[in-house]
């Protein structure tokens, strides 16, 4: 036995080395093996994400199986993620290697403020250009912003297929839908602000729509949970501007939920990820980011996590192809670019909010 032991460990060494070499994904540069090697030494990767752990877990498990690296996945809301990340970065006490957040604007701000490490992913070619911010921050998902409605309570004829339909519905049946429409509150929710400002850019009659919403006494919430729950219960019947991913997973459990992707334009939101420049495990971070963008990772995003894949070459339920099937070319991805961080400009923001508040009063 004493003889066998060094032999066995030597064998194991050879095998792991072999495995690592074999793991360099097709089409990646050869020196990627060194990144993998370094990542194995790091042993783990720390991820802060806004995607709830239940969904993220599919990715985490597969990634762990693929590379034998441990993933410490922290499930936080976007504000918490931001607060925690900047404080930890300032303290130099170690923070996330990868942050992955649905607050696109905050992510770009972090990248601009120098918290992100530039890294050109080998998957870059397969990623749409709108989802690549200076080879630093990448959109990972392709989530249509949907209108959800209660199938029991909204007659088929009333279901809005476009933003214009919704405007007409609210203008003609104001009383019937009084208090029945709901959306994210742009004042209290970063996502809400992002979506409504994008509508402002994409839809000529946006402010007419907002005013009609105000006249219909639209109710505003801070979380998707509160919105979807109240649409299924019938307290409200139409939910405007909901992440398609959340609506999709809910509709599978509850047949009452109907989902519409507006045919005039459908906003596409994307969860943005980047590598921290304070990463303790930078190589493992690269592996995880590349994995999320890879075909393998995106296939899981499309079929298990149900967050919608942004790669054209991925098959499944929550994919670009499926979105296009419904709305054709009326897709309008929210570009991951410097304009997003202008969203956070205080003066612009307060001005928009003031106008919004007036619209909510109907004028």
């Amino acid at each position, binding site marked *: 036995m004493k003889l066998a032991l060094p032999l066995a460990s030597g064998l194991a060494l050879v095998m792991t080395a072999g495995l690592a070499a074999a793991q360099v994904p097709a089409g990646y540069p050869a020196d990627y093996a060194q990144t993998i090697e370094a990542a194995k030494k790091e042993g783990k990767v720390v991820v802060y994400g806004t995607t709830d752990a239940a969904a993220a877990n599919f990715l985490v498990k597969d990634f762990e199986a693929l590379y034998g690296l441990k993933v410490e996945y*922290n*499930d936080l*809301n976007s504000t918490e993620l931001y*607060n925690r990340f900047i404080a930890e970065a300032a303290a130099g006490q170690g923070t996330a290697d990868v942050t992955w957040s649905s607050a696109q604007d905050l992510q770009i701000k972090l990248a601009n403020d120098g918290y992100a490490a530039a890294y050109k992913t080998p998957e870059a070619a397969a990623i749409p250009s709108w989802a690549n911010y200076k080879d630093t921050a990448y959109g990972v998902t392709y989530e249509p912003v949907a209108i959800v409605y209660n199938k029991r309570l909204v007659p088929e004829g009333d279901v809005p297929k476009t933003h214009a339909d919704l405007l007409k519905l609210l203008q003609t049946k104001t009383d019937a839908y009084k208090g029945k429409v709901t959306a994210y509150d742009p004042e209290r929710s970063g996502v809400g602000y992002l979506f409504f400002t994008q509508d402002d850019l994409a839809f000529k009659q946006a402010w007419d729509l907002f005013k009609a919403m105000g006249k219909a006494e639209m109710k505003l*919430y801070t979380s998707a*949970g509160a919105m979807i729950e*109240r649409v299924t*219960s019938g307290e409200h019947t139409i939910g405007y501007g909901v992440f398609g991913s959340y609506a999709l997973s809910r509709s599978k459990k*509850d047949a009452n939920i109907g989902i519409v992707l507006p045919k005039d334009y459908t906003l596409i939101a994307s969860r943005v990820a980047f590598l921290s420049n304070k990463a303790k495990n930078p190589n493992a971070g690269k592996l995880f980011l590349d994995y999320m963008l890879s075909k393998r990772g995106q296939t899981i995003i499309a079929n298990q996590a149900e967050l919608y894949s942004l790669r054209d070459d991925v098959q499944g339920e929550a994919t670009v192809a499926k979105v296009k099937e419904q709305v054709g070319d009326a897709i309008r991805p929210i570009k991951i670019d410097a304009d997003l961080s202008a969203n956070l400009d205080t003066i612009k*923001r307060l001005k928009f909010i003031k106008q919004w508040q007036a619209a909510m009063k109907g004028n």
Partner: protein
Amino acid sequence: MLRFATFRFAVLAIMASAVIAPIGLIIYQSFLDGPFFTPNVKWTLEAYQFVIEDDEFWDALRTSIIVAGGMTAIAVPLGVILAFLLARTDVPGKWILEPLVLVPIFMSAVVLAFGYVVALGPVGIFSTFVKGMIGTVPWSIYSVTAITIIAGLTHVPHVYLYTSAALQNLGADLEEAARTTGASPLRVAVTVSLPMVTPAVLYAAVLIFFLGFELFGLPLVLGDPKGVLVLATYLYKLTNKLGVPSYQLMAVVVVAIILIAIPLVYLQRLLLSQSNKYVSVRGKAAKRAPLRLGALRWPAFGLIILWFVVTVGIPVFGILLRSFVTTWGEGVRLSEVLTLSHYRDLVDYPNAMHAIVNTILIGVIGGGLAVACYTAVSLAMHRWRSGWTRLADYLVMIPRAMPGLVAGLAMLWLFLFLPPLQPLRATLFSVWLAYTIVWLAYGTRLVAGTMLQIGPELEEAGRSVGATAGRVARDVTVPLARSGMIAAWVLIFLIFAREYSTGIYLLGPGTEVIGSLMVSLWGTGAIDLVSALAVINIVIISVGLGLALRLGVRLHG
């Protein structure tokens, strides 16, 4: 040998630094123009200016005052009536009513609020039923009035606790004397017992009023649809108002809440000093005969049950029902949507399982450790005739002025920027410390109250036969306060088990707790899981409560 005075000052110093560090950081932050840890931050009063000029702040403050005042006006009379019925009369079913009365303390406000939405919301189960009968729903639970009423009802136990303790300390002979002079039981209650416990009642009233200002969960859920803002939810809104979290603005709101708290603590001290302290009747507390209610027995029982049903029964029923259906609301036949799948999903969801285990751990072990800390603080301040106790009183109260979320953020900063604490950040210890500090006021008052019930001569006897103050604390005070400390442990366990906001910034993988997990799932729309988790949380709390009662723990009195 360690002098007891040294111990006192050491504990005071440790407590002071544990309290002042996070608060000091917040106050410091309020005078800066950006996060305190970024380079080039400057001193400025801009944050104060912004908040003072913000109409929403004044709206929120006004609403907070209305809610705090209203809930005090509701909770105090009800709490006093309940305390009187249970402590003094022959109302039936006391053994079950006494623990039930406390239950609202242990219910997460968010869970209760969501339960109300399911049960009494515009399309809630009871609402649709009533609508079916009379054609309309005669109430709205999203108004300031509704928030005030619900907050008032859920805070009844606080008043009950203080009043019933005071009633129990009241000599029976005082009431009997009044009876023999010809006063009816009701008259005795109004003219003798009530005036005697007035200081305790006023004390509780001040506490409730203050708790009204840090109300968060209820207005967060119930104020959401109509945009009703109170101070704590205004603070939450500030996070997003400028796009990027603006700590200096949040800090200003916390400073405002502290400024409200200080005169209230002063008022409480004043009341306490007038109430002749808590010293109970020594030695032979005669077994007193309860006042006979006669024909009013069952109506009195009914009143308590009615309160309980409205405050706990209805929302718990709501959340319970929600956890067993796929959907609900107008036009849904509940029998067609029943399911067990939410619980099955929960079992498949590793974080939920971790959260359940961690919640029990932090409740049981963390609760025990916290009580040990509260005991040290109480012992250090116990019968200390010194001006330092005044400082201690304020110190203990201050963390209450920080909403849990802010307290958690401040604790994160401390663990990040104080070198001795850095290695402990990613451990459950950080969460525990944050919980322990946030609940300092509640916990020390529990333990200190028990210690004050011990006749001082029992401790003096120890000193006179040759034991140092430290020995007396170990050999007399602590053993005699043991049952009270166990009760405190149970109460702290229940409170830690329901906590949801404080730990959010400190949690990592493997250290999830149910409360924070619910908040995070709520954000992504996974209400199915939230409702199942909430039910499990309620089950944990009920089991804890049941076990405690089974073991003969007296939770109060």
